[in-house]
């Protein structure tokens, strides 16, 4: 391990980055898993509910908004992650890089 790496490792900001970013990634992945497999399980085991119209005089079933919702969730979660990464992780990374090269 070279000097720069040693400095990074000793930097509390690096520890903070590791402590925050990876677990955040896993939490977001877990939400995605929960949403997607929740949808798949509903589709597989609660067919009746999925095929029920959202109102008695309508054709649109619950499955449609839920399905489109999964697609939108994917985009929204990605957006949330990118926003936090831009606002919080990037400045941390920039600090770490700058402080390591002093």
């Amino acid at each position, binding site marked *: 391990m070279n000097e720069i790496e040693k400095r*990074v490792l000793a930097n509390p900001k*690096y520890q903070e980055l590791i402590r925050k970013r990876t677990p955040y990634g896993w939490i977001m992945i877990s939400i995605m898993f929960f949403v997607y497999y929740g949808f*798949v399980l509903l589709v597989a085991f609660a067919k009746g509910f999925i*095929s029920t119209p959202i109102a008695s005089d309508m054709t649109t079933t619950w*499955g449609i908004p839920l399905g489109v919702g999964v697609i939108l969730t994917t985009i929204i979660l990605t957006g949330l992650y990118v926003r936090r990464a831009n606002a919080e992780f990037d400045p941390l990374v920039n600090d770490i890089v700058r402080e390591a090269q002093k």
Partner: protein
Amino acid sequence: MNRVFAQIFLGLLSAPVLGTALVTAAHAADPAQASGSSTNWLAIAMFAAFVGLTLWITKWAASKTRTAGDFYTAGGGITGFQNGLAIAGDYMSAASFLGISAAVMYAGFDGLIYAIGFMVGWPLITFLIGERLRNLGRYTFADVAGYRFAQAPIRVFAASGTLVVVLFYLIAQMVGAGQLITLLFGLPYWVAVVIVGLLMMVYVLFGGMTATTWVQVIKAVLLLGGVSFLAFMVLLQFKFSPEAMFSEAVRIKTELADGDLAKGLSIMGPGKFVEHPFSTISFGMALMFGTAGLPHILMRFFTVPDAKEARKSVLWATTWIGYFYILTFVIGFGAISFVLTNPSFLNPDGSLIGGNNMAAVHLSNAMGGPIFLGFISAVAFATILAVVAGLTLSGASAVSHDLYSMVLMKGGHDTKKELKVSRATAAILGLISIILGITFEKQNVAFMVSLAFAVAASANFPVLLMSLLWKDCTTKGAVAGGFVGLATALVLMTLSKAVWVDVFGFEQAVFGWTSPALISVPAAFLTIWAVSMLDRSTNADKERAAFPAQQIRSETGIGIAPAVDE
């Protein structure tokens, strides 16, 4: 360059807009005429315009392609937005455009379930892989997976994983291309396959990643423009009420089922696709993890300058792909109302002229007349071309960078030679795909895409994830687990209905699920874990000790190779 580009591109986009003005006049013509197998000159002309533009770009790209870095990664100078479009372009293949809209037309809601599967792998890439990939790698995903490992074994594995995925994907695309082009343009099958193969070789050989990326970007914009127009026209007919669109679809489906309302309503809920829940879950798993293991997608993360742009590119890609699938769903329902009810698109037995996958193509004729039909046909052709170019480039990098440069030459740097090998491989892959495309003409190749996803999910993805995030992972563990995943996926796919029954002609499938992922993915992860834990060699200790340094680089980008190549 950008301005010229934008002008040409707007010119191309205006074609369908002009088309709508002519709809009324053109609509009187027999729609079947244009979608049959007679030579469709309008579509050919639009396609020729696309090819002309892309060849011009290739010429420009060739003048910029000097080093290995230019060839493999466009010199790392693609922006996040451009790369997002290129990634989306790689993912929105003709198969997903035509296949999913047709699936929605036939089965309604099931098509949506299928489309969702293709969406959910993207967050996985965003949250855990994309930025790290950019920080650790240069040309191929093996750079990343093998960052702290013994190079020869991991590269041999990664190249095998890449080539298996690329070849199966290529064959599926080539056969699809041949059939589609025969139908849309009225060209003989072999001519179509040869044209695709040769054009793809020109892009890759001369223009490298720069040309491949721009071809992909243009095609993505054309395709997104096309589906937007199509979906807009469909929704316009229903005064932008999805409810009206659904109830009309149910009415038509009921009518087609001789008044059986239950059958009509079946398109609004889960049907055959989820008859076997475990099979569905396994298939979903292959799509989710497979996306994060497709070499031609992973390769795109090396074309952007830094991790921030990599992150931006997945956000754009995810947004465009989601938008695309939602519109595809609308298009499928539109096809129920405007294709299934129009005798000029149907054979006497009620099936679609030209085959099951033609729903979106016929709909484009119904909504925009022959000019829009020509546009959509040209876009479908362009789509295949762009996707095969990306696949070929990633296969070529695996051979020249991983096998030739890192294994054979043991990392000894001679970029000129490496480039030569890469170009030679691209040419050979092009020839192989032409030959296999012609050989497999009459085969059912649909399973090959799911096979490619299954292998990507079971071999490439576990190795990539574990080497990135698990400090105790060792070379032996990664290589053993990767090959176990690869072999399990291949064996189970061979025993499943798609190969065992449909190709080999046995009576019953040994393996009952559509996808092996639910077994082969855990098998790969378990093997990586077990073998790594049991690995007590001194090399293993060194590899574990190298994790903190790898982590520093993957998290911060410190030590990253500059975008400018030697």
